[in-house]
């Protein structure tokens, strides 16, 4: 569930199709993961979680897996 949410958030931030987001999607290997896309992603994630991310959490986001992990974390 959270993985689908993560994928959706990432696809929207990167403005690409959901199907284009592979399991290994990461900032390093994804051309569409631009600086502006990254900004959109973090803001969307904060909106979804209803919190301002702690610096360590925001700085750790570099992949789909990182986004999914944050969404799955108990709140």
């Amino acid at each position, binding site marked *: 569930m959270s993985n689908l949410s993560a994928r959706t958030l990432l696809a929207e931030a990167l403005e690409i199709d959901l199907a284009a987001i592979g399991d290994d999607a990461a*900032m390093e290997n994804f051309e569409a993961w631009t*600086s502006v896309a990254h900004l959109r992603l973090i803001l969307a994630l904060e909106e979804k979680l209803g919190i301002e991310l702690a610096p360590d959490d925001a700085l750790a986001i570099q992949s789909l897996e990182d986004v999914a992990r944050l969404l799955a974390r108990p709140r």
Partner: protein
Amino acid sequence: MKREPWITGMPARLETERFIVRSMGPNDVTANYMKWIADPELMRNLNTLPFKQTPAEEAQRLKSYDNSSNFQFGAFVKPDNELIGFFQVRIDRRHKLAEVSVVIGNRDWWGRDAVLEARGAILDFLFDRLKLEKIWGMPQARNFAAIANYRKQGFRLEGVLRGHNESAYEKGKRLDFAVFSLLRPEWQARRDKAKAS
């Protein structure tokens, strides 16, 4: 790209696929540039209040860069030489370090890897010509666009400086900063990988 001759203290000129990246001088104080440095949205990322100086004063300030221990590079789009943003570089010769910061003023270039491309040329210059060993930057921890660019260029996060500066914009608020750095062997490895692919 071809490497142009340069000696310490002279303006530097670098070239990438899309940009000329060169030391800025008094003649580069354009109306757009003056708008950017007076723009709170842009200056907020540097935690600097909007500049209030006149174009003449800013031209004078640009003259203070000695092209030896400090530089202000402009990124000019080829072939029209339109300035889209600038990089400030402060060098510590003793420890072979440089601190780099960036402002892309022309918003049409946001999200188009202008920072990666132009800063790539600056990194080559700092490592190859100035023989530096480490380049670092310190964006605000909530400057997510800048952070993405550091990550994508291979910079590593050294840590977070918590409550490190007083906010220039919100009274009583202290700001966190992230420290990113890139060492010579890391940059060389990226270049070798790019060449091989």
